[in-house]
């Protein structure tokens, strides 16, 4: 069998196997569930973006002219809650991960298809409750819910929102559980651990964090609700509690959660870089293990969010040191991706452009973490726009770009259609430029002293306003850049060129079946005989001109 032969089209694929709303709402197919998630998170992303635009518009001028302070506070709170809990955390795992993990390891589905569907319903219930809270009057505590503001002083829908997030958390836990069991037990014959694509490794590490960390935030939210309703006193010093305890609990989850958001993105980027330069990843094991190292070390650094929060100086020092060590595995990944390009065959397709953009922006995002992990500079930078810029570089510049790159990369597999390449490249460029213009001024703003979560700022500081205007201009460009794919991806569903089974000519298992795949993914269970990203067996010389590689053994 020739490697890149298109497999026989099966009669039906997962999209047309069944019709009707019911066939979607009761589906157990991981691919359909991934699409359910895709629809839902796109909706939440859209809402979150509207809030973002409102924030950027308000900050054009030093005064509050678009809305009142209380509205502004709700706006940034709801932006953060929706983006973090309802977009970033589920984004890559629940859509691309759900769709691809079984396919990449040669399985028919996840280990627990019903639980997978359940996790989507849980997500939706959490989402609906949260949307209800927003419509009923909103919430104004910041996505961090710091006490005692959230327990005693806020007059907004804290409990309803908290309930939404609490419920939503279980969908992450179930997804994580499902991935772990699937990866352990459902690998096709020959798919050893070290033959798995790095996307799968990254999701394995992410799943560990999901199941170990999420319960902590669930309990923390529960405690906030109990404190608010029944005043149990756990966070109230007058009753013997401690408000800083909340921050410890919250960040014990939420620091690892930032890795829930970025590890899957790293997995996507490993795929993009390797596949679009037709090279096996440089230092595969280092990249794989660095994901696990991040997952483990990520649980030990939460205190870097409390350097100015009355934590002791010595605790600060320990957390600072550990924060620097957790940065090393991320650096290793960046260097390995770069080295993978060396002597590759690099294409400039849209997914690769996103992958390359990720490397640059994630590097900046990670390095600016150094300013925050270093104690003395963090004292000045904590709770300023520098922090805002730092995490947007990672979560937008990193996760969102990787998500878009992955979506384009697997779009032919998911939809059976090609997206328009020219538009893809064009919008990737717009997104990159818009993103940088939005967030790079915020580093400067932060060091100049602009605190975050500020509705107004001193009018006499003209340089602040200049930077805010730049940032808003960038956000407008970014907004346009994000609208374009929305339009052409939707367009391509109907008018796009029909995709082949393996349009990029890649060795990954997900490409060795039809596009879109049949419900059971593979007509016969694949038997894996080669490493991940094996474009040519090692003994082969550089080959130019035709495909040299043969399927090694008969299957």
């Amino acid at each position: 069998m020739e490697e890149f032969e298109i497999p026989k089209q099966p009669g039906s694929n997962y999209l047309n196997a069944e019709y009707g709303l019911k066939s979607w709402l009761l589906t157990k197919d991981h691919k359909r569930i991934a699409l359910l998630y895709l629809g839902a998170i796109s909706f939440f992303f859209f809402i979150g973006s509207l809030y973002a635009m409102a924030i950027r518009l308000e900050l054009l001028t030093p005064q509050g002219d678009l809305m009142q302070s209380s509205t502004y506070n709700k706006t940034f709170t709801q932006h953060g809650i929706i983006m973090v809990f309802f977009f970033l955390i589920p984004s890559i795992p629940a859509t691309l991960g759900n769709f691809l993990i079984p396919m990449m390891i040669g399985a028919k589905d996840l280990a627990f298809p019903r639980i997978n569907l359940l996790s989507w319903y849980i997500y939706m219930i959490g989402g609906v409750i949260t949307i209800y809270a927003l419509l009923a009057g909103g919430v104004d505590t910041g996505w961090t819910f710091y006490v005692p503001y959230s327990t005693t002083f806020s007059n907004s829908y804290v409990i309803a929102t908290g309930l939404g997030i609490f419920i939503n958390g279980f969908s992450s836990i179930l997804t994580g559980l499902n991935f772990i069991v699937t990866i352990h037990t459902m690998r096709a014959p020959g798919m050893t651990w070290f033959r798995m694509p790095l996307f799968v490794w990254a999701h394995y590490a992410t799943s560990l964090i999901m199941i170990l960390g999420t319960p902590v935030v669930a309990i923390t939210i529960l405690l906030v609700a109990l404190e608010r309703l029944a005043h149990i006193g756990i966070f109230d010093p007058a009753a013997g509690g401690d408000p800083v305890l909340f921050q410890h609990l919250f960040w014990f989850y939420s620091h690892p959660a930032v890795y829930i958001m970025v590890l899957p993105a790293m997995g996507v980027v490993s795929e993009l870089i390797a596949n679009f330069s037709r090279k096996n990843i440089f230092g595969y094991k280092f990249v794989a293990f660095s994901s696990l190292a991040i997952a483990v070390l990520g649980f030990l650094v939460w205190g870097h969010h409390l350097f100015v929060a009355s934590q002791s100086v010595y605790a600060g020092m320990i957390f600072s040191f550990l924060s620097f060590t957790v940065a090393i595995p991320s650096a290793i990944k960046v260097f390995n991706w770069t080295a993978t390009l060396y002597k590759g065959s690099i294409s400039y397709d849209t997914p690769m452009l996103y992958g390359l953009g990720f490397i640059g922006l994630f590097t900046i995002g990670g390095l600016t973490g150094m300013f925050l992990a270093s104690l003395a500079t963090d004292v000045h930078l904590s709770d300023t726009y520098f922090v805002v810029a730092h995490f947007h570089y990672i979560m937008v510049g990193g996760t969102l770009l990787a998500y878009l790159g992955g979506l384009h990369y697997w779009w032919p597999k998911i939809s059976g259609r090609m997206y328009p390449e020219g538009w893809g490249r064009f919008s990737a460029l717009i997104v990159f430029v818009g993103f940088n213009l939005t967030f790079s001024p915020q580093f400067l703003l932060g060091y100049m002293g602009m605190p975050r979560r500020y509705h107004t700022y001193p009018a006499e500081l003209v340089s602040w306003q200049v930077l805010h205007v730049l940032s808003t201009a960038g956000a407008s460009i970014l907004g346009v850049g994000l609208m374009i794919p929305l339009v052409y991806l939707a367009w391509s569903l109907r008018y796009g060129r029909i995709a082949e089974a393996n349009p990029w000519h890649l060795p990954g298992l997900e490409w060795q079946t039809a596009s879109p795949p049949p419900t059971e993914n593979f007509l016969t269970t694949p038997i894996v005989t080669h490493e991940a990203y094996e474009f040519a067996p090692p003994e082969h010389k550089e080959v130019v001109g035709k495909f040299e590689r043969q399927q090694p053994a008969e299957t």
Partner: protein
Amino acid sequence: MQSWLPVPESASTLSGDVDALYFYIWGVTIFFTLLISVVVIFFVIRYRRRNPFEIPRPIEGSHKLETLWSVIPLLIAITFFVWGAKLYFAQYKPAQNAIEVYVVGKQWMWKFQHATGQREINELHVPVGRKVKLIMTTEDVIHDVFVPAFRIKADVVAGKYTTEWFEATKPGTYNFFCAEYCGMNHSGMRGYVVVMEPTEYENWLSGNAGQTSPAAAGRNLFESLGCISCHGANAEGGRGPALLGVYGSKVVLNNNSSVTADEGYIRESILNPQAKLVTGFGPIMPSFQGQISEEQLLDVVAYIKSLSTTKPEQATAKPAPSATPSTGAKPSATPK
């Protein structure tokens, strides 16, 4: 008013050091960002796909390189750590012989009280070239005193005192901000630190004299709240221990451990007396939780501090350089 660099005015003894570290990290950041970008761009151009069918030769990886690019970043990160930690230590070390100012944050204003009695709202007058120590708490939610020109920031937290200090190097008016989100008018919770030449400052002090000093106000509260019934009319002791000289001393507790009596300890002794019992005394002191405002509490603390003849910094061996010299109020259940 501002230099050409995008940094705020540098007006404290430590602000220059923080800037130096900041620029150092920028240097490394820019170096690595450029390194990665240039190498990536070079590879992307040099190894672009020239033929749709080409397959490059695989490269496995290299342990040498992996070691190199783990160890070098780690070493650089350690320099960030050491430098940052050293400076942080200086930032939070309790200031010796500082002018003390009591700060109470509440939604959405800042109240300052000088040891000499002057009270201010959203404005703080201080002399140039003197250490100023802020002893801070809040009446409601968490706030944060952030003075960009001094590169200092510290949360104010209910239930304890936090401190920060600075020594201004240039007269002028500097913005300060609340840097911990605190509700509706958070962005309005800002004001100015006015740094004055010493003579000017003396004039300002005397121009605003005549307000009761915190210690005097505390003395009155000591009577009106009935502390005298146990601690004596002049705090010389009675059913309760003498409070003369307590501040800054080592207090032996009934479990034979000992604590240094700082502001946080005194605060706890008043709000939650049973948490730490002085040796030889029973748990008879009632809690004053809820009967005394944060500002009044600071006045009483100031009064008790004024009863110490020795300066605390000299009396104690070496107070832990903690952001919270207090242990905060972290008692077990309060017996009623």
